[in-house]
């Protein structure tokens, strides 16, 4: 099963994103869909970079991807950082004006829009964020 593992730092964003793009391309997703998956991937990774390992803690992020059934790709992001408050994240107010609009909150929102199914679980000290992607056009 293809896997990549690198320290959870912004400087490693590009190779981590390229790994997921390669998996999606190999699965036959269109250029447009690969780009949408890239966006969701960046958002997931930046969240891990910013929140998983606070203060002086260091750690890795691992990404695994595999095919399930004829047209489904699963991408799993794993880190051994602090628990991720997935369900407590608010939804940005997409109707707010410039003045009322908050700077944060967009990452998870965009992930949910770009990925068919997003799941989170915590297992044996790891955060596991799973994208399930249907090849659809």
């Amino acid at each position, binding site marked *: 099963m293809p896997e990549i593992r690198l320290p959870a730092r912004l400087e490693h964003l590009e190779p981590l994103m390229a790994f997921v793009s390669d998996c999606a391309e190999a699965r036959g997703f269109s250029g*447009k869909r690969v*780009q949408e998956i890239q966006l969701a991937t960046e958002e997931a990774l930046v969240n891990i970079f910013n929140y998983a390992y606070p203060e002086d803690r260091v750690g890795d992020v691992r990404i695994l991807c595999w095919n399930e059934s004829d047209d489904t790709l699963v991408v799993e992001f794993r880190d051994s950082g602090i628990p991720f408050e997935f369900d407590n994240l608010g939804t940005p107010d997409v109707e707010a004006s*410039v003045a009322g609009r908050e700077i944060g909150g*967009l*990452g998870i*929102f965009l992930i949910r829009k770009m990925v068919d199914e997003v799941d989170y679980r915590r297992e044996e000290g790891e955060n596991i964020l799973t994208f399930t992607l249907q090849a659809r056009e």
Partner: protein
Amino acid sequence: MEITDRNQDDTVVVSVKGRMDAISAPEFEKDLDARIGQGETRFVIDLAELDYISSAGLRSILALAKKVKTGQGMLHLAALKAPVKEVFDISGFSSIIPIFDSVDAACR
């Protein structure tokens, strides 16, 4: 990502080429903050050659919009490619920052 600025009458046209992601968005913010520091208040961001934008890019553009509003200036976006427009639409940014098909239309 490449950023080039030019002046068109009283407006600064900022052309952004490539991808605006978590790594490159700070560079964009720095460039625009410098222009604001020089007293510029009217901006058109030319996105004809921007292929990709993530929430980091949106955040930088929103931060710019708030600063421009404070200075009672103008921020318009021009020539968004389809994938970039999609992200602006989904996030609701299309309805709060004026978007035009061309730089000329955005400058008026």
